[in-house]
């Protein structure tokens, strides 16, 4: 099983991932004679407190995406009041030197993250494909997939 062993940064368990357009959108773009935007390298936080994965609005904007979903979200900042957020279909690559994991279709909710120094949250929906070991005493984490 490929795994990444990384140090926990001051901001938490951070990982660089690739986010691009979903496979279905890639096909639609190609059929329409349009170019497929290159995937973006994105700094993401692995967040077991997030039930869904999220991206900063700058990512869908850079990829030229339109929302294909709407989700209801509850965050501490909204004082217990759920709010509605756009959702985008993207592809996500967890990179590994030998065997990367490519998820061709992932629904990611839009959320302001850039001010926290990250561009994405890897939530439990993506982590269902992984094994995560967090060693707080050593200050490292391992993500296997």
């Amino acid at each position, binding site marked *: 099983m490929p795994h990444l062993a990384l140090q926990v940064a001051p901001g938490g368990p951070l990982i660089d991932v690739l986010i691009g357009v979903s496979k279905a959108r890639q096909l639609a773009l190609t059929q329409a004679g349009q170019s497929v935007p290159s995937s973006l390298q994105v700094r993401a936080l692995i967040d077991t407190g997030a039930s869904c994965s999220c991206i900063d609005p700058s990512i869908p904007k850079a990829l030229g995406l339109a929302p294909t979903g709407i989700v209801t979200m509850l965050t501490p900042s909204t004082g217990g009041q759920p*709010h509605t957020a756009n959702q985008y279909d993207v592809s996500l690559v967890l990179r590994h030197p030998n065997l990367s994991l490519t998820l061709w279709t992932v629904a990611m909710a839009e959320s302001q993250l850039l001010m926290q120094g990250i561009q994405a949250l890897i939530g439990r929906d993506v982590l269902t494909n992984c094994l995560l070991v967090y060693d707080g005493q050593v200050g490292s984490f391992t993500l296997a997939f």
Partner: protein
Amino acid sequence: MQRLSLQQYGTEIARCHQGWVCGGGAAVNMTRREVLMALEKEVETYQKKLPDLKAEEGKYALVHGENLDIFGTYEDALSAGYQKYKLEPFLVKKIQAVEQVQFVTRLLGLPCHT
């Protein structure tokens, strides 16, 4: 998971369509408002047809304008959406009588304008 009643969900959608979505500054909200407006018709169609979709709970609705099709998985609905509607706006929504709320505990300290 906290769940919203249909009425609460409708209220949340309506508040967003009035122009404000939590989690960002005014400029960002204007952009998001414009985007949300692109799916306004689809959300309306979904809400209107939801009472008749009880037997389809857990499946995925593909909505474009007033058309609604049902698929077993998110991937299938999305693929069909791009095949049928190309790059036009469409909505893929999990069919739920009671809307499931997603939790993100990380998102602290952002102003809420709703």
